[in-house]
């Protein structure tokens, strides 16, 4: 026996291939959407991995520092550092902002980390080029995705920083590349007030008899000095000693400090289940719609192809072809369309993924799942045409 489906496809391959390519682009979009979601999850994982922390200590009852604002006094780290099971503890600040660079601006997450000691949590774990920050001020390490180069000077708020090192895959949960500063510099950047605000604040202090008691000018000066600096951090990152149990250490910190502590698992659930959840549902909706559209296209094409062959199908049935053979022919054509579409889609998605502004992670497992979904959709979509073909009466081949 010969493959009727194969012969039919070869006979009209132009139309078939064009349809397959169109379907393929749609499948490519679908795979990319899944890749966008995987990229977001991977960005979140990278953020947690690269922070180097086992525990995140944040302001009490907040989901900080990534999902909600959190503010702690930097001295919070001291008692924590002294606790059993704690290896290291370091304050960090996070601030997402636009930074002007060579005429355009780049969205970055400015990270303030304790740079005095190498290996403190919060620092970039590895550098691609250059060196780590060694001076307390005006040096920065940037993720390559910022487009900054070593030696570049970038302005963050009022100060200019020199890029001394480059790192990679250091991104915020939103996919923005990181710019590392020393904690002090980052605190200044985060809490700096502009000159007008300082002038107004000073005028208010000066006019308050409590803050500026007559005859004691030093009081107002002290108040002003206190208001102009900040020693807050957004979180304290904690690593636990080898062999210590992170959950137990977290419980101990919770017991003794008025703070909220998250473990790695807690943090993942905050980032992935809470922050990304809506985007995931959004993408899920798109996937469902794209699946329906693909199914409609396949169903429509296969149905038109079948309706165009009604006469031939009647003849085939009259001369003794089984319904099963004819249904098989239609199913094979639908699957063939799916196969072309999947191949084109996979190639297209791999081709255009790097051009997306955010990380698109194409997992082979997703492709495999996509393949089976495509084949399933094609099978379903062929049912309509198969139904029409089964209904064809062989008597139709004999003129009325």
């Amino acid at each position, binding site marked *: *026996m*010969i493959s*009727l489906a194969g*012969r*039919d496809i*070869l*006979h*009209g391959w132009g139309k078939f291939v064009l349809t397959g390519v169109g379907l393929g682009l749609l499948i490519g979009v679908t795979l990319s959407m899944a890749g966008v979601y995987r990229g977001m999850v991977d960005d979140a994982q990278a953020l947690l991995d690269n922070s180097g922390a086992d525990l995140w200590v944040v302001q009490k009852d907040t989901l900080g520092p990534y999902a909600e604002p959190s503010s702690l006094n930097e001295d919070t780290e001291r008692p924590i550092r002294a606790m059993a099971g704690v290896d290291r503890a370091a304050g960090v600040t996070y601030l997402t902002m636009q930074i002007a660079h060579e005429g355009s601006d780049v969205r970055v997450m400015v990270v303030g980390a304790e740079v005095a000691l190498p290996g403190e949590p919060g620092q970039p774990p590895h550098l691609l080029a250059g060196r780590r920050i060694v001076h307390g001020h005006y040096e920065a390490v940037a993720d390559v995705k910022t487009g900054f180069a070593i030696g570049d000077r970038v302005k963050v708020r009022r100060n200019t920083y020199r890029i001394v090192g480059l790192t990679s895959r250091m991104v915020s949960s939103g996919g923005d590349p990181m710019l590392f500063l020393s904690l002090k510099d980052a605190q200044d950047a985060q809490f700096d007030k502009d000159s007008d605000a300082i002038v107004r604040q000073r005028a208010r202090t000066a006019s308050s008899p409590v803050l500026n008691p007559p005859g004691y000018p030093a009081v107002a000066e002290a108040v002003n000095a206190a208001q102009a600096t900040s020693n807050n951090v957004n979180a304290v990152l904690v690593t636990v000693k080898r062999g210590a149990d992170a959950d137990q250490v977290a419980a101990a910190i919770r017991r003794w400090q008025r703070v909220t502590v998250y473990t790695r698992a807690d943090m993942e659930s905050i980032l992935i289940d809470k922050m990304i959840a809506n985007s995931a549902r959004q993408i899920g909706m798109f996937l469902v719609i794209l699946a329906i559209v693909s199914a409609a296209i396949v169903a429509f094409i296969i149905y038109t192809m079948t309706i165009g062959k009604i*006469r*031939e199908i009647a*003849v*085939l*049935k*009259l*001369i*003794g*072809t*089984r319904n099963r*053979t004819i249904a098989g022919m239609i199913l094979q054509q639908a699957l063939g369309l799916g196969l072309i579409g999947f191949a084109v889609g996979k190639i297209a998605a791999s081709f255009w993924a790097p051009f997306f502004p955010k990380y698109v992670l194409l997992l082979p497992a997703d492709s495999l799942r996509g393949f089976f979904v495509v084949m399933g959709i094609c099978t379903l979509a062929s049912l309509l045409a198969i139904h029409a073909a089964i209904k064809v*009466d*062989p*008597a139709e*081949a*004999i*003129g*009325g």
Partner: protein
Amino acid sequence: MAEGIRIENLVKTYGSGDTAVHALRGVNMAVAKGEVVGLIGPSGSGKSTLLKCLGAVIEPSSGRMIIGDNVIYDGGWKVRDLRALRRDLIGFIFQAPYLIPFLDVTDNVALLPMLAGKPNTVARKEARDLLDALDVGHRAAAMPSQLSGGEQQRVSIARALVNRPPVILADEPTAPLDSVRALAVVDLLNSMARQFDTAIIVVTHDEKIIPTFRRLYNIREGITVEEQNST
């Protein structure tokens, strides 16, 4: 001569009660192998209904049909697989060739033996031999769309013959042809009937070819009348 097909008292009523249409009211026919007979009659007389009953695509209401040695209908179907019956015992020729456009000429003919389970090489060999016999062997590798109308008709005749059925049903096979070609087709059918020892029933209202049949069945209001052509 051995009998190709015999029909006894065949009745077909569409619907029932007040709306019943008595399309066939008792048809009697017998065609020997090697013989070509015409089936004529005015529009609505029951020609297509008879052809569909013979072709086992609609079920008669009563009567008997025998193809070769097989009683296929006797008040009810006597064979279980009508599809196989059509494939193995009946050849069909239509008004238009109705070739499968995506199969080449050889495979259009070889499809039937293939459907009957013959290996592709055997089926194709049989097809090519038959195409040669019908003078279209040189177009064996062409696609149907590349053939002339006459060549397509020959291929469709080869397809009807390939499983060596005891009977071939031809439904207005000359309708679209001019008289020279129409007569050539009838000649061809006559020689094929003799060569392959098959009974051929040609449904037609084509005045050009009616005189060529030695024997005719004229059907009127569902009843056949046998006629002889004196020439």
